[in-house]
């Protein structure tokens, strides 16, 4: 059992949520509450990371942020190391790959809030920010939870993008799902099975705990 890889996976899962949830909340809220020309296009474009085969997406990300791209060079000159083949690069890739899972459910959840409730919040003198945190977010909570669960689970399982961008470096970018894949490629079904089972237990346990805890504090009644 490759505990280091499990650690990388969990760190990546949590970090992806930390990066992605604010973006998802912002974008989901925007798409739910405003209407503007080209909105349908943006909504469709957000699903692009899902449409591309992960390895292909990973390749394009590698090219975009790699050593040979201006973007990649800019990052490297600031951070001191290249984006790909680092945890930061992994995180970026993971965030992009998981964007669709996060935005859509959050958008739907915001859309489902009755307009009367929003109006009432404004008439209570709550500013847009206060409204967001005190009213919209708690009411959209189940949708946010779904987004978080899907993104977290998918981050644990993703390996196409992550392998391409991360490069499978032990302790840094080798996630458990890559390790499992490696074991399987080496015909070590037993080792792969043990790791897969561990991953499942950890994931299912985390998700169960989350739904139970989150469900308990946010039941609408």
């Amino acid at each position, binding site marked *: 059992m490759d505990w280091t890889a499990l650690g990388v996976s969990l760190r990546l899962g949590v970090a992806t949520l930390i990066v992605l949830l604010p973006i998802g909340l912002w974008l989901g809220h925007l798409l739910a509450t405003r209407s503007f020309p080209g909105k349908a296009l943006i909504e469709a474009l957000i699903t692009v990371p899902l449409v591309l085969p992960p390895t292909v997406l990973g390749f394009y990300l590698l090219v975009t942020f790699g050593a040979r791209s201006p973007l990649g060079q800019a990052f490297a000159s600031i951070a001191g190391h290249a984006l790909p083949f680092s945890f930061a690069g992994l995180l970026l890739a993971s965030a992009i790959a998981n964007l669709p899972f996060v935005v859509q459910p959050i958008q739907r959840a915001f859309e489902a809030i*009755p307009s*009367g*409730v929003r*109006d*009432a*919040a*404004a*008439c*209570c*003198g*709550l*500013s*847009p920010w*206060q*409204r967001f945190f*005190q*009213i919209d977010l*708690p*009411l959209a909570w189940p949708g946010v939870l779904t987004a978080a669960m899907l993104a977290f689970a998918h981050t644990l399982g993703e390996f196409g993008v992550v392998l391409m961008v991360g490069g499978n470096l032990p302790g840094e970018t080798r996630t458990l799902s890559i390790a499992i894949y490696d074991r399987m490629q080496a015909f070590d079904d037993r080792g792969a099975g043990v790791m897969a089972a561990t991953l499942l237990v950890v994931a299912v346990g985390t998700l169960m705990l989350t739904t139970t805890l989150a469900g308990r504090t*946010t039941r*609408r*009644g």
Partner: protein
Amino acid sequence: MADTPLRVGLRQAGPIPLDVAFDCARGDVLAIFGPSGSGKSTILRAIAGLYAPADAIVRTGDRTWSDTAAGVHVPPHQRAVGLVFQDYALFPHLTARGNVLAALGHRPKAERVARADELLAQVHMDGLGDRRPDALSGGERQRVALARAIARDPAVLLLDEPFTAVDRPVRRRLQDEVDALRRRLDVPVILVTHDFDDVVRLSTHVLLLERGRVMASGPIADVMRRADLPWLRDAVGLGAVVDARVAGVDLERGLATLDIGGPALVVPAAGLTPGALVRVRVPAREVILATQAPAGLSLHNVLAGVVTEVHYLPGTSQVIVQVRVGATHLLAEVTGDAVSRLALTVGAPVHALVKSVSIDLHVVS
């Protein structure tokens, strides 16, 4: 400057037709009264900034909230309105207390919870502060909505049928709370209601709305003594509304006399003190006219006056007779038969008989 009233002018052809303009001074209560679908809620929403008619002016104090010509539209949360929504629009995820707390953001953090509980007590919701809306009855929800609207210490209070779901005794108490509040905050209040009791007990002015247009408006006494408003008669029955001062109280007999600028009006003394200002509604249906002063009646008020108007109600056998009694005008609804029997014509002297207990009375201050 600060004494500029709330000034509202709304106009559009559709989809919701509107053509209204009115003012409401600080401390005044304007009752908007009109058939279902006439645009009452829409007016409140436009004042709060939740709805933007094609042509809108909303000013309060020295602030302009809406002015379509000038392109001004202050967003709702920057308008200091307290609005009771017709359907309450409570926050479903917050407790009753949480709902009220949400509107207390302008108060120092330390006092908010105490203030919320105080407000809940004012609407008689003590002990229910921890319940979510879905565990409250309809009337309880409505009271939370009222407490929330008040909580904001608004510069304009907008009440959209705020008492429909509560029983009459609670309604009376809520009316008193709103009345006290309006006096304390000294803000304009706009009250939408289908219940005339609310109008009489709370409002200083009335606006009659039909299909988005103003049919009549003015101080309540002026509008109420008009005999030519058919919808109003169907809706509430006619009747004079008179503001008067308590001249004397006879505790032994349990009676008080009111000064209405002429003969005194005798009413039950309960709760009255000399000098108090009271609002009195004398329903037209309950006024009896007599050509000679009768004797041996359980009745206390035999008021000598003069017939000033005789208005035959179209399509009925009833007649509205306006009688000037001292400085006041009363209305009496009598049968055409009685009019001819007693020869009631304009200028004829007449006695208006009013039972003391039939008078709707409430203390204004």
